[in-house]
């Protein structure tokens, strides 16, 4: 599975971008914030968006299984 993803890593770049953006821009930032009650818990509000992005990434993987590698 991992070798398949690595071989076709370009297909996952947009999703990787969003995960990193979410992680660095929101998660790490919220940990830096002190004395603002609930700022970390507020992250729960991003669950629907993250779930949809994850579903799209999984769908991309399933498409690759059906169609074969894109860089062959």
């Amino acid at each position, binding site marked *: 599975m991992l070798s398949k993803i690595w071989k076709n890593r*370009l*297909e996952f*770049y*947009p*999703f*990787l*971008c*969003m995960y*990193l*953006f*979410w992680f*660095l*821009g*929101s998660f790490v*930032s*919220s940990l*830096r*914030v*002190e*004395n*603002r*009650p609930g*700022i970390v818990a*507020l*992250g729960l*509000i*991003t669950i*629907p*968006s*993250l779930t*949809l*992005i994850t*579903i*799209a990434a999984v*769908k*991309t993987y399933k498409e690759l299984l059906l169609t074969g590698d*894109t860089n062959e």
Partner: protein
Amino acid sequence: MNNLSPSVTYDKRFGYIAYGLLLLVIIFSTYLHYFQPEILRVPSNTDVSTWHNPTFEQTLIYDRMSEAERQKIRTEGVTDGNNLSLVLFNDVVMLLLGLICYFHARRHFGFWLASCFLIGSFVFTGLQESLWILGGRYLGGSFTNPMGEVIYGSYWFTRGGLWFIETPVVACIGWFFIAYTCVLTAGKIFPKMSLLGRATAGGLIAMGIDLWMDPAVTSPEIMNWVWGKGDFLLFFGIPIYNFMGWFFLIFCFAILWEKLPQMEKRWGRAKATNRFFLICFGADFCVMAFILVSWFVIVGNLLSLMGVNHGLLIPQGW
């Protein structure tokens, strides 16, 4: 050279002109921002007492701060305001993320469509942000909201390496890959949905991510950007019209870009490109006008009629 097809020749010329122009605007804006800050009234990161439209006391972050935090900002300036390594880190990371997303777009849609997405979203959002930022700086304090409270400007970014007008290039690049991924995600999950439905889904996905990021990065510990007071409803210290902007920018751009292949079929690549960028410019002003009218005029007056007589106040320390 003579063996190249007309579209390849056009793509090359388009690439040189579009990327060249964008680079020129970035170089000129960056020069203005750092070396002629008085022209665009760039607020100082070191001395907050020089802020005007809004002053430090007229910002939302002032309300969120404790007295000790206010004193710290008055003496030391904006948090990490002149931290060059942080600026460099942000710029490099965002450029890399934008670049890998562009590679994906180029493989799937070709050079012309991928470049139209990159440059189009970059300019569309960069111009929109700059319109709000400069509008706030020059017109701040001149208007009141329907509750009779003064609108003290809009907002501005405190950090950035390269600038597009008054928007950091990293913010424009961020808009590019967020818009691209959200439109891609909506298309993957709802392939049978109409264009309007997919654009709506893309806009909502992007807005969902922003709902957490903005309250965190505008906190006094980070101060990535600063908001002026004036909106009557706030979400964890962030004006609601910011989230409306997130949704409508992605929504409108997704529709414009997905219409581009049809425009090409109808008018040819060169004319389609010109019209696409012209529509992008026009749509920028329409989005701004729509948010101003729908939010500040219609919703504001409705709330006022319902008896709301002042905007939401933020508890100190938030």
